[in-house]
């Protein structure tokens, strides 16, 4: 096979952890990482859904520490590029980044809400000085227009980010939105561009293909779509779609289908995520996909209309990590009859 011009980044063991309420088991992580590497998947990300230091009452407590998850995957897939997601809201250099470097993490994707890129400066500069791979990640990108996103991304490039990942954390974008953003980013930023889809509107595959056609270098995907809310681009389907278009992903189609079939029957993916009226509503209201289980919980607990609750939350411009606001809003809505 020819060398791929783009790469599929596997976020099953990180974003997928949202779908597992952050309870990913070490056994599942080890089995999955070893098999994924055998399929030709080079980049494997692992950790709490909110990244290093994410384990909390606020967004969910991990079944296993970052240290244990990273060590397990590092050993299971020694030749893979091992990545982690980092949000300065949750992770610090001394408590989280240094131990992760010592455990052999190769790539750190330092993430901020799309308008707050300057919160990543300290950590990007630190990681750059430690000679590990460092990417800047803008999350919740549906909250800004393309010109504003480029300004934020430029800051991360200035701090030393070697790539920029755009995360449609709310699953709100359409293929034409993706084309506009990725084309602008590729021509402006001078570093490899990545795209991370969520499937709220059933557009994750279409958006990911569009991102590659617009010049993206890396596409985030997860097996069975395992990810927050409606999930991510479904990795095995994405590989098949690229194969049909004669675009080389470096991943074996048959092997990745086996991986998916086996993952489905193990305990670790009980119910694959799917687009639904609820994910469509959070998508068009620009709400973080990971909010949905909590929205459902408090809609039931306070007996309030879920459409009203999602719409009310959509008016607040919430960022990922404001899960605590959901309960407060639900509490004050009128009760169902």
């Amino acid at each position: 096979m020819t060398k791929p011009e783009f790469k599929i980044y596997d976020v099953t063991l990180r974003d997928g952890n949202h779908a597992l309420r952050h309870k990913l088991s070490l056994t599942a992580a080890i089995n999955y990482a070893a098999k994924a590497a055998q399929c030709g998947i080079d980049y494997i990300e692992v950790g709490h859904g909110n990244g290093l230091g994410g384990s909390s009452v606020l967004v969910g407590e991990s079944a296993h520490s970052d240290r244990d998850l990273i060590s397990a995957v590092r050993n299971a897939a020694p030749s893979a590029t091992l990545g982690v997601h980092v949000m300065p809201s949750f992770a610090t250099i001394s408590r989280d980044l240094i131990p992760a470097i010592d455990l052999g993490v190769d790539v750190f994707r330092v993430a901020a809400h799309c308008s707050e890129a300057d919160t990543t400066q300290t950590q990007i500069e630190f990681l750059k000085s430690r000679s590990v791979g460092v990417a800047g990640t803008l999350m919740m990108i549906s909250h800004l227009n393309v010109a504003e996103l480029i300004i934020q991304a430029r800051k991360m490039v200035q701090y030393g980010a070697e790539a920029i990942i755009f995360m449609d954390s709310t699953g709100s974008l359409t293929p034409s939105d993706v084309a506009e953003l990725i084309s602008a980013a590729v021509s402006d930023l001078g570093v490899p561009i990545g795209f991370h889809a969520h499937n709220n509107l059933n557009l994750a595959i279409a958006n990911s293909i569009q991102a590659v056609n617009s010049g993206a270098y890396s596409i985030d995907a997860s097996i069975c779509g395992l990810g927050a809310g409606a999930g991510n681009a479904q990795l095995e389907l994405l590989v098949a779609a690229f194969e049909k278009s004669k675009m080389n992903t470096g991943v074996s189609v048959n092997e990745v289908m086996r991986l998916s079939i086996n993952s489905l029957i193990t305990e670790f993916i009980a119910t694959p995520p799917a687009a639904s009226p609820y994910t469509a509503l959070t998508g068009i209201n620009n709400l973080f996909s990971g909010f949905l289980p909590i929205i459902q919980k408090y809609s039931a607990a306070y007996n309030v209309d879920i459409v009203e609750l999602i719409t009310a939350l959509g008016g607040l411009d919430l960022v990922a990590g404001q899960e605590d606001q959901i309960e407060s809003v639900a509490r004050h809505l009128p009760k169902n009859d």
Partner: protein
Amino acid sequence: MHGNSGVGMSVNQKVAIFGTGKIGADLLAKIVRSTGVECVAFIGRRVDSPGVQFANSKKVPVFFNGISEIEKFKDSIDWVIDATSAKSHIATMPRLAELGLNVIDMTPSGLGDPFSPLVDTELVSRKGNYHVNLMTCGAQVSVPFVHTIGSIAEIEYIESIANLSSESVGPATRINIDEYISTTEKALALYSGAKRVKAIMIINPAIPPIPMKVTLFARFAGAGPSQLMRSKIAENLNQTLENFRKIVPGMSFPHAPYFEENYLKVDIQVMGSGDFVPTHSGNLDVLTSTALWLIRQSTKDR
């Protein structure tokens, strides 16, 4: 360390403020409308900063030569408030200590005595030789409440989430989020007795800006405290809020603290008094209100 200087003999407390950013200017605005406290020097770097313009409009003496200004009239200053940066405070502090001035550090430098007004009552009654550190905004809001809970029941884990409006989080804080988290976590452990702690800072860019809010989750061992202890905790938290409101009147519980499984959740909203910074910047107001309260408190009952 601080010489023998107590708080000055005159009832009118004379204050010098280092740092003319939002926090320094908000403290100045509070001092200007207070009796018994006077700002004799507002010390900054930029002639055209909004804080300096505000000071000029209030006829407050403004200086630009750093600590050398203080040395000129050290005998007529009772308090130095440092609202610059942790780095700057660490550089300045040895000289301030030599001059024997009372110091309130509003930076997360980690120097000085951690200070929470409702808990550190022996510091309040010391009436001199102060070098106190206000830790962080999240710690200032959290500490009296986690201390209240920890005094009644053994806390296994405590988590403090500060929700801040993007508008209220300045450039210095943005590059020091690590320091915010580690300083806040130290304070949570110190004042609550919890074995494990976590601090999280969330910055929200919504317009209009959100008011500062802190959410606390406390988890207890086993099934958690008895019904009797839960009532006691609820009662004492309300009392703590009432006491805190004497310092920060805009502080409130949007809803009563409540238990869920073996967690206690406490939501605290902090509206500032809108002196120099807007009312939603409760994260800045809690620091400036606490500093002014300490200065005024130190002159009482003499």
